[in-house]
């Protein structure tokens, strides 16, 4: 049997079944369709402006590698007139980033793009390995996510760049929509589908070019399927580093991810359909009048302000669910339910100190915004964005999440400033551990001195 001809050019034999709609295409047509769709996303949302300097958040993974390759192609083909550079964050996870950063370096050379690598260590004084050592594997993704978000902005500010693009794809967005439904997080649900997120300029009072409070974030691959990204990388022979974060389990995301994959199997358009639903639901979230979810197209000036704790997940946990996250939330919700119920309808009896039984009618109390029974529609207070009093980063709280987390970390860390002096004599990776040991010894000595004093 002769191979099926490509559904688009009808001349070449089809080589690829498009995951998005199962149409059979030849390689060139697939590349063209894939690139054109991203071009369409960029132009229909007026994502770029001529002369703009744009940093690509590059992890060395498939998404950011394909993003860099496609943006380079499109920038040349359609003459966007933008300058593209690569920005990588080194979380300091041994065996994960070390290798993927090599990939980024290779890509930088190949695409002729400037590359900056910024480490958690130099930004926050902690590598992720050290964080995990301190807090354990449970909940460390929170730290990583919070730190990463700020890290990209700080990196961009350092480079004088006002726009960072990330490799979030349609699967990631769909997954986040379902995850936020499962977690019952409407404010985040209303933000995740938006193509552009940025820190509002109103708080960026300073005209300081290095200010990291007014940086635009966007996801040009928002409508691109993960499977197509993989196919594109494969057939274009792009080198990317494929590994999962070794600390990754995040139950909600894992559960949502598995569900998305199953949905895609049943109906390939489902991923896109979830994204569409997410955009539409953003408009229905209480108090989110700006939540157009990118659907308002040309009217792109109203970017969605993004809270600092956004995009907590690293998106690489592949359906592995530790379950504890869901179990914890379930327990907490059950407690709330029970409390709400008791408050509203049960007289609680307890034994007084003298052994007599007393009846106490508790006054109904709202628990975490959830009251049982019929309650009129609540208006959710809008987040008011200000600046962190410590680092100046955008925050809805007085102190931003990263600083809060850091404070917690630093409180439990022995004061070992002396260690810093050793960093300069740390030329070879392999020697790092022994040097760390020295650091510890040094620490102990310091503590002993402090103790005797």
């Amino acid at each position, binding site marked *: 049997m002769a191979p099926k001809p490509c559904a688009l050019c009808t001349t070449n034999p089809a080589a690829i079944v498009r995951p998005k709609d199962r149409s059979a295409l030849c390689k060139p047509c697939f590349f063209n369709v894939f690139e*054109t*769709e991203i071009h*369409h*996303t960029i132009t*229909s*949302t007026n994502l770029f402006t001529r002369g703009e300097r744009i940093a690509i958040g590059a992890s060395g993974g498939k998404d950011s590698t394909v993003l860099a390759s496609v943006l380079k192609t499109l920038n040349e083909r359609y003459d966007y007139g933008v300058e593209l550079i690569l920005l990588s964050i080194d979380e300091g996870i041994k065996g994960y980033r070390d290798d993927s950063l090599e990939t980024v370096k290779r890509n930088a050379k190949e695409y002729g793009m400037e590359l900056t690598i910024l480490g958690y260590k130099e930004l926050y004084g902690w590598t992720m390995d050290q964080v995990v050592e301190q807090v354990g594997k449970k909940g460390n993704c929170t730290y990583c996510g919070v730190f990463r978000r700020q890290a990209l902005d700080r990196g961009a500010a350092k480079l004088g760049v006002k726009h960072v693009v990330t490799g979030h794809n*349609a699967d990631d967005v769909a997954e986040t*929509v*379902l995850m936020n*439904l*499962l*977690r*019952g*997080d*409407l404010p985040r649900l209303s933000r995740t589908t938006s*193509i552009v997120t940025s820190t509002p300029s109103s708080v960026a009072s300073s005209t300081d070019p290095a200010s990291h409070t007014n940086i635009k974030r966007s996801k040009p691959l*928002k*409508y691109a399927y993960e499977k197509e990204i993989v196919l594109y990388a494969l057939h274009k022979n792009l080198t990317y580093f494929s590994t999962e974060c070794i600390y990754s389990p995040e139950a909600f995301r894992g*559960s949502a991810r598995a*569900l998305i994959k*199953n*949905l895609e199997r*049943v*109906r390939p*358009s*489902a991923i*896109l*359909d*979830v*994204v*569409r*639903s*997410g*955009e*539409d*639901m953003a*408009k*229905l*979230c*209480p108090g989110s009048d700006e939540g157009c979810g*990118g*659907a308002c*197209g040309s009217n792109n000036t109203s970017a969605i302000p993004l809270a600092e704790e956004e995009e907590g997940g690293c998106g690489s946990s592949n359906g592995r669910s530790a*379950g504890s996250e*869901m*179990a914890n*939330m*379930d*327990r*907490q*919700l*059950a407690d709330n*339910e*029970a409390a709400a119920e008791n408050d509203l309808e049960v007289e609680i009896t307890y034994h007084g100190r003298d052994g007599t039984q007393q009846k106490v009618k508790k006054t109904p109390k709202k628990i975490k915004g*959830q009251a049982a*029974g*019929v309650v009129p*529609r*609540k208006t*959710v207070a809008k987040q008011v964005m200000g600046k962190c009093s410590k680092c100046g980063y955008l925050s809805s709280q007085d102190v931003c999440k990263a600083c809060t987390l850091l404070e917690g970390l630093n409180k439990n860390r022995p004061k070992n400033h002396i260690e810093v002096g050793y960093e300069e004599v740390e030329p070879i990776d392999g020697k790092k551990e022994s040097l760390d040991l020295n650091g510890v010894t040094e620490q102990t000595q310091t503590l002993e001195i402090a103790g005797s004093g």
Partner: protein
Amino acid sequence: MPGKHIDQPIDQPCRRCKENSAVLVVRSQPLCRECFFKYVQTKTIKRLESFRVRNASPDHQRTLLLPLSFGVSSVSLLHILDCQLKTQMRKTGRTGFALHVVYVEIPGNESFISSDNLTEVKKAYPDFQYSSLPLHDVFRLSSDTALTRLCPQLNQNEDASPHEKLTGLMNSLTSATARADVLSTLTTRLIVEHAKASGCESILWGDTTTKLAEKTLSETAKGRGFSLPWQVSDGESPYGIAFHYPLRDVLKKELVSYVDLVNDPISALVCEPSTIRQASMSSKNTTIDDLMSKYFEEVEMNFPSIVSNVVRTTGKLEAVSAPASAPRCDLCSMPVPDGRFGIHGWGGDQQDGVKTIAKEGSSQLCYGCTRSIPQPSV
């Protein structure tokens, strides 16, 4: 798995009455049989406050419609309401409302639900009015001709019987998900039309917490996020009739236990195709609805509060106010905000140049319905 919960007696007294021994654990409380019945009854009746006797005028009987599918939930709801109405009668000499029961004959369900099932239900609950409607009646009852336009050309002429139209429409669909989706949409519309025609002021749907959570995620996956608030909330629906979900605070697994424990008469009346659906879980016959119901079966077992939280969260979405004149989808009849019909003309549609303006006389379908019944692009 009848009797699953009773097989292992719980060696504890009932947390509520403190007298009888518990027969099952409900939301971490050991309960005896009686207290569990009270729990289910109270949770359900609480959602129907506005239909209490004191709200019913003596010279006008309010009528509510209960669609019966013979599943655990709708049969339980029937039983619960029957108990409630009997209690009202005993206490006040009258009832807050009268109940109409409707069964929709869905093609494919004849194999396990026959007219005998309805006869049995009538015998068990003789106080209500019953009707049984074939699904194709939707083409007869619904006054708008838009539905007919969705049928293949062949079945659109005037002498085509409603039955032929339905068969034609179903045969034109290309996936199990689309067929299930269109069937349930048409069923809803028929029930609405029937409720209006028989003077009912509200429809009491049998959806449990679990079902509503399933619906939330499965409608999201089908691209109907825009109409979610209309599909899961109590009160006036865009169909011009009120919807109520009295079982909204009860989990599906709780009703399964309820049916087991009440036993006579309801366990014999329940007729669920659960075994049939399990069989087709792996093949291409799996639907999005199947997927979600399987997913939430697991979540319900391990994290029941997350199920309720999904429903509570969806309840907080605010429906856009839709004027009566708002453009509507030809299939699901939901108002489509800003007339955004079809799957084209949004950010995620990447085919530039596809005309989105509908031809004169062609169908206008919302995003979700277009996925089920693809429209030829102009």
